[in-house]
């Protein structure tokens, strides 16, 4: 008889808090449809790894821990494989039509470096500050990859922050965009000339970008290489079945495993710290300053160029694809329903994907160099 209630006595407050947090993530995923493919497995995983039952914990930990060791701890396999799928999903044509837009993708990574400074100010060690800062890359695989490479102790909080804020882009960005721009600026119309990009250019683009990034930031080669490999599968035209597999089966399979596996870092004793709240706050700062950085560059360029740029498209440089692009397009239509910014904002948005990987690689190289890792 005792065996039926004995384990109830093992429940601790920290476990209950983590169940609530897991429940909140599941609620946000299902009811609010916020990044459901990741927040739902993470939420459920958080509940699994915080069960008070010793045998259950051991059993669950063994499975999730093994997946973590293979997929993340060992060689960051899951984020890299997911990048093949992401690369296969991205159409870089809007960027190739107007490559100058890539400059806004670069500017919109400013939040990463600003947050690195802020995290250092709050007392985080350099490797943890850099791992927290990479939340601003608005890219889950990059965040997990960099945090693992630097050996950060906050991977759970960083992953939750990265994926949550990616889903919150439609809430976070509009007020910042309105604050940083005037009505006159938001009304600027940008003409889109749908120039045809040659197939050869589309095929060479992923190869060339991989080589260029590898030469400057070798630590980013795995990320950029897998992303561009996925894109090459899409663009070469002779591997359509592989491209479809990468976009659908591979991406979904890895997403299931990644979400559940990251929960290994969400055990109560690791997650329930003051630093977790601080990380959530710093992650938000990263997204805000990213948005600010992209917009400010556009405004600066408008001082020197005849053909004005709608500064809102700078905000699309954040790597949250395609939400950020859609937010900017929607805001443009709200100001003037004949102002179609979508193709410009998509071009900037996909360039942000590349720029965020470059930022991740540079951060890895610079931090590892400073710490002698």
């Amino acid at each position: 008889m005792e065996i039926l209630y004995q384990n109830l006595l093992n429940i601790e407050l920290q476990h209950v808090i983590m169940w609530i947090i897991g429940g909140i993530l599941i609620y946000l995923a299902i009811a609010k449809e916020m990044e459901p493919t990741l927040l739902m497995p993470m939420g459920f995983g958080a509940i699994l790894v915080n069960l008070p039952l010793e045998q259950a914990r051991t059993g669950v930990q063994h499975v999730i821990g093994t997946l973590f060791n293979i997929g993340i701890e060992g060689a960051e396999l899951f984020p890299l494989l997911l990048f093949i799928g992401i690369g296969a999903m991205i159409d870089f044509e809007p960027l190739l039509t107007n490559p100058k837009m890539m400059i806004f993708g670069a500017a919109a990574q400013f939040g990463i470096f600003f947050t690195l400074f802020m995290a250092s100010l709050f007392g985080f060690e350099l490797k943890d500050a850099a791992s927290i800062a990479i939340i601003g890359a608005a890219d889950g695989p990059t965040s997990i990859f960099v945090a693992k490479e630097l050996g950060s102790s906050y991977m759970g909080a960083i992953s939750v922050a990265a994926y949550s804020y990616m889903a919150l882009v439609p809430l976070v960005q509009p007020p910042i965009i309105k604050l940083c721009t005037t009505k006159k600026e938001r009304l600027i119309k940008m003409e889109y000339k749908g120039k045809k990009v040659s197939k050869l250019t589309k095929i060479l683009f992923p190869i060339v970008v991989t080589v260029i990034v590898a030469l400057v930031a070798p630590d980013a080669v795995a990320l950029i290489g897998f992303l561009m490999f996925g894109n090459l599968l899409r663009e070469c035209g002779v591997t359509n079945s592989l491209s479809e597999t990468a976009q659908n089966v591979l991406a979904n399979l890895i997403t299931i495993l990644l979400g559940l596996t990251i929960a290994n870092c969400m055990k109560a004793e690791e997650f329930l710290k003051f630093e977790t709240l601080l990380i959530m706050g710093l992650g938000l700062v990263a997204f805000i300053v990213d948005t600010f950085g992209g917009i400010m560059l556009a405004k600066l360029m408008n001082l020197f160029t005849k053909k004005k740029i709608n500064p809102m498209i700078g905000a699309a440089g954040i790597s949250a694809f395609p939400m950020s692009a859609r937010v900017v397009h929607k805001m443009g239509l709200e100001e003037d329903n004949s102002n179609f910014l979508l193709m410009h904002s998509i071009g900037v948005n996909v360039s942000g994907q590349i720029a965020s990987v470059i930022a991740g690689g540079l951060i890895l190289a610079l931090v590892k160099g400073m710490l002698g890792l």
Partner: protein
Amino acid sequence: MHEFIMNIGYAVLEFFYSIDVGNLKNSLSIMGIGMLGIFIVTGVIILTITLLDKLFSK
């Protein structure tokens, strides 16, 4: 009230005293080099794409 303000003051001083200046300097230099690096790489990519497009467009 006076004691409350003094306590806030001490907390602020303690915060600033605990700042690792070396770490801050490192993070500032990473900020500078990192942003410069991103813009340089982006510039090279933009030039390369423009060149590819000019070479291979019909």
